[in-house]
């Protein structure tokens, strides 16, 4: 498989996620969560304002807590709207999955 070396890897980008989600919704959605880089958050509230599920993303972001809320649709709205690039999708590490 060809690897694209110029990208630094780490986060799963939102478009990739939604495409995968289309193929195998349950698998991918259950494997990704929104993770913040707390130090970059300026607590502006843009993420919470745009979350369709009314999750207070900001309260998670500045505390450095991943969104483990079962209502999260992994819709990526908060990730894309955050003006500071604080939020990203990350695979849930295997040891927290069954």
């Amino acid at each position, binding site marked *: 498989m060809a690897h694209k070396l110029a990208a*630094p890897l780490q986060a799963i980008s939102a478009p990739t996620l939604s495409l995968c989600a289309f193929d195998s919704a349950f698998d991918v959605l259950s494997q990704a969560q929104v993770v913040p880089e707390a130090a970059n958050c300026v607590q502006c*509230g843009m993420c919470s304002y745009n979350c369709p599920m009314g999750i207070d993303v*900001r309260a998670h972001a500045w505390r450095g807590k991943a969104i483990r809320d079962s209502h999260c649709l992994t819709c990526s709205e908060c990730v894309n709207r955050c003006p500071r690039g604080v939020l990203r999708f990350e695979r849930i590490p295997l040891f927290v999955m069954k």
Partner: protein
Amino acid sequence: MSNHYVIIGSGIAGLVAAETLRKEEPKADISIVSEEPHDFYSRPGLAYFLRGDFPEKQLYVRSPEDVRKLNARRIHAKVEQILCAEHELLLADGKKVRYDRLLLATGALSVPPSFPGCELAGVVTLDGLNDTRHIIEQARRSRPAVVIGGGITALELAEGFACRGMKVNYFLRGKLYWADVLDETESKIVMERLRHEGVTIHTETQIKQALGVNGKIASVETQAGAILPCELLAVAIGVRPRSELAQKAGLTMDKGVVVNEYLQTSESDIYAAGDVAEAFDPVTKRRLRDVLWPTAIDQGKIAGANMAGRKLAYVKGIPFNVTMLTGLKVTIIGAIGGGKKNDDLITISRGESEAWRIAPNTSGTVSGQDDVNRVRMVIGERAIVGALVMGNQSWSRPLQRLIVAQSDITPIREALLGGGAESMAQLAHFYRDWEEKKAARITGT
């Protein structure tokens, strides 16, 4: 009897210090004295409120439950004087507040304009929520506005006015926007996009005076003699620490309030944190000012803990900011500017660090780019010392991690200085190995 901890300022440094004090001493008696009557709010969020991206209530950073748990007394008043010998504050209404330990978290204020006509109604600066409300009331559709100044705030004002349908003229003294932090290409990208948003940029243009009718601004005259209609004139020429109280109290001052590694001022019971403080930077071995939200948080935590009796040293991190310039995300990390001048600012503006302008022991700058997506790195002897990531942010986190860790890049230094796609490919390899080795060290595999 337990100590009375008093904090002047309800900004983020004051709030975080109070939260830390509460954690350290669950029964502590904490008072926050502030001129601002509002609940705790996000100052950087004001730019999005100004644009109309969300309503005012979205700015508040703590839930009512959080505020209740904090259990701090709020005193809405301006502090006129600190009476150090008596350990008392003198408030504007003549009342006095006794303190055992005091935190100065008074922030910074815009440098006021001084051109003729600057006192007219409609000449504004953007520092807080009251200013933003006032600006929004006046920012009516189709009305002419002028913005002068530089840095992030001037751009946020120009974009905010444009979003509200105003006809915006932006005056720059030189040829380029934010010339001491952005390079020429980056600056031109931002200027081009700003023009697309409907803002008219006037380079090499300076205001001579504001002209009014019945005490209200109606037009501005440039140094070259042109007259432009103007009903709202925003000035963003930099910010200065609010250090009058410290000065009157005889505390040691430089550009801000000088603090030691424990964030104590020259009076041992008085601490300072946030925009008002001037802390020592062990990297450049000098005292540098930041006007940054993350710095205010870090200092608020350390000051709060030390007021409660701990002895934690503040170690200034590598300053960074992620900001939105004309819809493009831009991450700025470490030393990136390299000592150029910016005629649009008298001092640094909000969202900035003096450290960005210093480039120690560097020997090369690398840029990889397409039309808007750029990565610029400043390469030191052994480590990457600064970076600017514009547009696509895939490189933002990796570079932040490599720079903060001062990771030894000697094996790929030559390749990096070679520039271009190959250097980024080498860096991607290097970064992946670096993360893997780090993870292996943590898990012990």
